[in-house]
């Protein structure tokens, strides 16, 4: 897995550098970046304070405020500045399913999104989520951090149950700072994803979702009488696979995907639904751009 992360060839990476994550709404917070914002910043006029977080530009610390409150604050101005890009990577056990595995593509896309963001001087944070946030990489910026991203992704196991609602809502570093959140998951969670999306929107995030399903999930070719065992919960369903049941499954799958599409549309969330067998180039340079996630 890790080796796959490291094998992006230079041409691919250079192509990525020409891309940028597209945010629908202005973002706020963070140090200077290449994103046009109505947020307050250095170049135009003072707008606000916020507490210092590691990585902030020392030069923008308001020492007067420190003198008065003995806490570090930085000045916020209406300016062009960096955005916080948070990548929520579903690392539940179900992501390790399919041929090729959904998780592989998800990790690669996490790396791609991180690289594009870093190349655009955005701050990137990665959270591996199951039913909680099991691992998280603090926000960082600069291309130098890309290697750390790959190393972080390499070491992520796929295990545990999926609960996007619980895990994303428990992710604290968002702190109502506007930014971009990208959710990479199969969205096959029993408790759904609605609360998570609402939470992200509440946290003033421009949200993009990438649903990755395996070919086996999109077009099952099983037959006979089967006891289908859930990889995450070990729950099972006994069904006799007939054309009738396969038809019902596809109907349920379509409903599930359509619901996700409808939800994202209502919440102004950019969505892309792909199979895990799609090539990375096609996904990045065609599908993502078609949906407007990147430009």
């Amino acid at each position, binding site marked *: 897995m890790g080796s796959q992360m490291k094998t992006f060839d230079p041409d691919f990476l250079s192509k990525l550098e020409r891309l940028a994550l597209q945010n629908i709404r202005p973002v706020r917070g963070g140090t200077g970046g290449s994103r046009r914002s109505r947020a307050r910043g250095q170049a135009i006029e003072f707008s606000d304070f916020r507490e210092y977080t590691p990585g902030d530009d020392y030069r923008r610390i308001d020492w007067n405020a420190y003198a008065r409150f003995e806490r570090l604050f930085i000045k916020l101005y209406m300016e062009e500045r960096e955005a916080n890009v948070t990548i929520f990577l579903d690392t539940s056990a179900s992501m390790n399913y399919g041929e090729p595995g959904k998780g592989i593509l998800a990790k690669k896309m996490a790396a791609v999104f991180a690289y594009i963001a870093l190349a655009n001087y955005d701050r990137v944070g990665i959270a591996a989520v199951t039913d909680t946030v099991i691992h998280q990489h603090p926000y960082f910026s600069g291309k130098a951090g890309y290697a750390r991203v790959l190393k972080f992704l390499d070491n992520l196991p796929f295990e545990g149950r999926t609960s996007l609602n619980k895990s994303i809502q428990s992710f604290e570093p968002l702190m109502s700072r506007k930014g971009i959140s990208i959710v990479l998951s199969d969205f096959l969670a029993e408790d759904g994803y609605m609360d998570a999306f609402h939470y992200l929107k509440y946290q003033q995030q421009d949200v993009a979702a990438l649903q990755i399903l395996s070919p086996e999930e999109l077009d099952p070719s099983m037959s006979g009488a089967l006891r289908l065992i859930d990889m995450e919960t070990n729950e099972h369903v006994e069904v006799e696979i007939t054309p*009738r049941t396969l038809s019902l499954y596809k109907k349920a799958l379509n409903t599930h995907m359509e619901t996700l599409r409808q939800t994202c549309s209502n919440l102004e969330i950019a969505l892309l639904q792909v199979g895990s067998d799609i090539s990375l180039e096609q996904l990045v340079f065609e599908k993502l751009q078609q949906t407007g996630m990147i430009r």
Partner: protein
Amino acid sequence: MAFRNPWGWLALLLILPLILLYILKKQHEDMNISSTLLWQQVFRDLQATRPWQRLRTQLLLILQVLAIILFAFSLARPISFSGQGGISYIAIVDTSARMQAVDVRPSRMEAARTALLDLIRRMKTGDVLTIVLADQQPFVLAGPSDDKALLAGYVNEIQPSNGKTDLGSAVQLAQTLLQDQGRDGGQIHVFSDKALSGADSHEELFFHVFAGNGENAAVTHVGYNVSDRNITALSRVANYGTGRNVTLELKVDGSLHNVKEVSLPADEEISVYWPDIPASAREVVVSISEEDDLLLDNTGMAAISDEHKVKVLLTTERNVFLERAVSLRGDIELLKANPGEAPESSDFHLYIYDGGLPALLPETGHIIAFSPSAHEDLGLTAEGEIQPSGVIINPQIQYPSLMQYVEPEGYQIANAVRVNVPEGFTVLLQDRAGSPLLIAGERDGRRMALFSFSLHDSNLPLKADFPILIQNLLNWLVPPGMTFTGQVFAGDPLPLSPFPDATGIIVRSPGGREYSFDAYPPPVFHDTREIGFYEVVQEAGERTYSGGFAVLVPTDEVSDLRTDSQPLEEEGDRVMQTAAYPFQREIWMLAGWALLLLLLTEWWVYHHGI
């Protein structure tokens, strides 16, 4: 509705395992998947339609049970009796002696008769039936008729014969009748214990076979040898079945004379000798005491000759060659007389004149004459002499049997009388110029053979075929059968050979029935259906010649009950029908199509769940 293979219904047992499969809980194979989230939805959908699902399951079961029932129905080969009338049917009933066999209960004939009556009962309006009996000669017993009562009456009268039948001729006759009737769709139904090979090519031909694997033993031959003081009988006993011991009885002139127990190996024929039979015996009967599937051939018999001698008068100065040639036949009593010498008796059956021909011929008796003189009564002229150049058989010969094995090319004749060919005569031998050398013919019931040359003027007596020529002539003039002792198979015609002086012949059957014939022209006795001794009496004025013959079962043809029973596959399957009844139509094809439709429906229901 009937079923030609009721065993096919056993396929219904398949329903049991089918239901068992439905009762038994299905074994599900484990499979790990990413999430059962969507499958739970499927399961809920299935649950939501559960009443219909249950119904669908039941429907599948019902459809599958129906499919098995149709399958069993097809295997049972159902027969529909439906059909439209107006069709010509011809029923051929085999009346051979084999049909008397009881290996099919109550007998093959009875089973055939019952089947034929059943056929008549099922006839539709407008159908006509012709009944043909396949006897020694096939003949139409009844019809064509649609009168069921009339036809049934004829059927009840059908009895098996004691002989063989010619089934092939009967079929040919039936086919001709069918063509003559000119009705389309006619069918020929043969009720027999065998099916003709090669009949498959005839679509209109159906066989109803009634045959079992019968066990049978038969007395195939009874003969005798007469010695000076007594008679020894020879009997041949054949076993057409498994090995067994049988008891043989010998009756002489109706009285039990001897009993023997013999061992009959399977499929073998043995000889049993019966010595010390009195020389006065006239009839010997050998019979098997034990009953088997065909009783008819358990008895064999022979009529012992009365040894009537054929009396022949040879008028010659001296002719050793001719005398020896004539004496070769054991039943000839030869008397010799000098030319011009009047015989003491005039009741000879044959007169041989070695030179000349008396002006006044005897009143009775056949004649052979060498170098005959002209005779007004016969219309025979004898003028001048010829020196024949070569001897040949007349190319247009009328009596070819007289020249059988005779090769006249080497005959040398120095002189012959130039004779004409009187009315009623034909030339047997002639010279190359066409002059008659041997003529033969009949005049007033009297047969004559006239040589136009003297044996003394030819090398004919020195030739190897001279005795053959003389015996050929004797067999024609005074046949050996004139002694009337012999054997004939039931149904075979018997040509009767009267003595020259006989005027009438009476034949009495074993049942006491009398048949009277004029002695000439020689009659042929046809009614040899009854097995047993027939008495023959020839009346010749105040004299009578008594003799007889035995009518026997043609055991070679009828005794092996298994010969044509090979199609039987299972023991105990006593009756096998190889054809449907004329009004029946096998509808298993229909059931097969219905089965196919049902399976398609089942497949559709299974896949669509509707």
